[in-house]
């Protein structure tokens, strides 16, 4: 079998001149990277033990217990918010919800690595990143409730709207980053996308543009192992972080359930961007603990034991173990957080339930910035049509 070399295709300097990668590579699996994978950057083991990493330690060297507690709080509140949204969907208050369960570390770690002037381009699942950016979580719910397609001002928090068309936001991020570079600013841009998205042509094109223009952008791929029902093997046969190299910039695989590692690696990548060193691909190796969305039924395509294995690597538990073993917390902290969590849940419920349906004339709003004769005409016809009912009713 020629696949031994293939399983670790990159690092061996061997092979013939003029050939990259493995010759004779049969199929290899990109999915189940063991925890001991030397390619996986990890700073906290699943047991919460802090392990050293020559390259990335420095990015979290000065982190204070308070900051660690902050990361923990972020993850707990994000998860609570997420659970609340899932519940609200079940109650019929939302039409759909895309849960981030299991991906809290990838999102909070990377989100907290960003600076205020950085710009974030999310998919539809980056509730934790939104949290870090200061977007009111209830604003995220409008599109899932069906009252809008995006309920926040992207420029208030430098957090772009959720994008549903898979992969397309990576190009927007790259363009934005090209603009940052033109402005001579030292901000950076980060684009989120999934393992499934890695197959889209747009993502490859964004790599090309980012490389050619040396754009200050970080491509942050949350490889949560699944694109709806498709495992990562349906998208790639080698680890995704390796994709970057062939476009001329570095790729890193980080333990996506290790908030510290995600923070460190993203900081490194954002710093590269700021320093004019161009794009970086970060693959956060994590797991979608829940269904794809509330419409999905994962029991049709995956085994429970897979999920169970990942439960042992839970990002929140991991940091809690670390905090506890380091004596960074006390009971009060957890109790307070629980209360805060409850309060958040309550607020989310209240806000959502009170969220009004949009005015029907909103259909015609903001179709154009400068107006359009046909929209005006149709709005007027619509108004007359609506009024005809009022008249009819009035006439009765």
């Amino acid at each position, binding site marked *: 079998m020629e696949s031994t070399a293939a399983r670790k295709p990159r690092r061996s300097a061997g092979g013939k001149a003029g050939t990259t990668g493995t010759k004779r590579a049969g199929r290899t699996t990109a999915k189940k990277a063991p925890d001991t994978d030397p390619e996986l950057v990890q700073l906290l083991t699943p047991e919460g033990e802090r392990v050293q990493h020559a390259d990335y330690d420095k990015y979290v060297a000065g982190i204070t217990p308070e900051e660690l507690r902050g990361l923990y709080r972020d993850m707990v509140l994000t998860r609570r918010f997420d659970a609340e949204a899932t519940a609200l969907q079940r109650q019929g208050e939302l*039409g759909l919800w895309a849960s981030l369960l299991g991906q809290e570390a990838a999102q909070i770690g990377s989100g907290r690595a960003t600076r205020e002037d950085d710009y974030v381009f999310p998919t539809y699942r980056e509730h934790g990143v939104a949290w870090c950016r200061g977007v009111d979580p209830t604003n995220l719910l409008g*599109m*899932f409730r*069906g009252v809008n397609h995006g309920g926040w001002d992207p420029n208030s928090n430098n957090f772009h709207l959720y994008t549903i068309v898979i992969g397309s936001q990576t190009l927007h991020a790259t363009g934005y980053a090209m603009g940052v570079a033109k402005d001579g600013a030292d901000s950076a841009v980060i684009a989120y996308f999934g393992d499934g998205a890695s*197959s889209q042509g747009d993502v490859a094109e964004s790599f090309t543009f980012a490389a050619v223009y040396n754009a200050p952008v970080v491509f942050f791929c949350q490889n949560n192992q699944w694109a709806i029902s*498709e495992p990562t093997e349906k998208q790639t046969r080698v680890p995704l972080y390796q994709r970057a190299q062939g476009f001329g910039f570095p790729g890193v695989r980080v333990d996506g359930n290790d908030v510290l590692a995600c923070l460190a690696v993203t900081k490194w990548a954002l710093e590269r961007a700021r320093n004019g060193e161009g794009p970086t691909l970060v693959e956060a190796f994590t797991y979608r603990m829940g269904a794809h969305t509330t419409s999905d039924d994962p029991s049709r*395509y995956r085994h429970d034991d897979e999920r169970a294995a990942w439960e042992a690597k839970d990002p929140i538990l991991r940091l809690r173990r670390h905090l506890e073993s380091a004596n960074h917390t006390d009971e009060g902290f957890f109790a307070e957080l629980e209360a805060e969590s409850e309060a958040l849940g309550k607020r989310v419920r209240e806000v959502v339930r009170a969220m009004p349906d949009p005015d029907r004339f909103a259909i015609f709003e903001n179709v154009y910035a400068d107006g359009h004769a046909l*929209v005006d005409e149709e709005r007027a016809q619509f108004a007359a049509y609506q009024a005809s009912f009022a008249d009819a009713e009035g006439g009765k």
Partner: protein
Amino acid sequence: MAAEKMALAKAINESLRRALDADPKVLVMGEDVGKLGGVFRVTDGLQKDFGESRVIDTPLAESGIVGTAIGLALRGYRPVVEIQFDGFVFPAYDQIVTQLAKMHARSLGKVKLPVVVRIPYGGGIGAVEHHSESPESLFAHVSGLKVVSPSNASDAYWMMQQAIQSDDPVIFFEPKRRYWDKAEVNTEAIPGPLHGARVVREGTDLTLAAYGPMVKLCQEVAAAAAEEGRSLEVLDLRSVSPLDFDAIQASVEKTRRLVVVHEAPVFFGSGAEIAARITERCFYHLEAPVLRVGGYHAPYPPARLEEEYLPDLDRVLDAVDRSLAY
């Protein structure tokens, strides 16, 4: 059992199953069509029965799906590809328009591309953005493609059979909000032509023409109008390219009035083409201009507004009234 009551989604499933069974060259491809059976379960169980080599979960890349389907067709296969939702067909648009549609002509007829592109389309299911659109005009304008849309389970079954048998690329728009509607499907019937319209209700005062999800609505409209003493004829067009102008003309020569209903935006929609051509064909017959009821020139709205956006009983009746008022 030849005749059975089944949901529209199930009818397509059965039709795909029959095609996979009958012809080893038929393939089913798309995102999540395998184990999951598609997000609407239209391909449910097919991979289990026909294997991963016939029912193929693809990478998440629509251009790749259609582009490789073209290659497979060149090799002699007959791929039926699924686009997960209407709003996600656009990454494949280049392959569809510049390659799939034109390769037969480009080769002077030497190669054939029997590819079916299945697209669940239309609104009314309370979905998020990009999941409720009706882009059929964008395909009908393109020569080399055929565009059809069944309105009921029986047509879904038979039109899928015919689409797969066709040597031309067929864009097969499935009315997703009718997926769960049941109807009798006779799997031994002899179907009519794929591109022929059908009178689904006879009438004398006005013709309602629709396809896909709007046929049912038009039937409801006709029933409501009947209570008011008006006799509406309802035409299920079934095919958007070609359009069965002869059938529309025949109906309009009788009723002298035509209202076209579709979910797609009216502006540059199929109602425009129908209105233009029928007005030309029936200039001296028409008592009123052809009226159109459809979506507005605005993005498909958030779910809580979709009822305002979509044609409904009142809006179609309003158009009927306006037409009859001429």
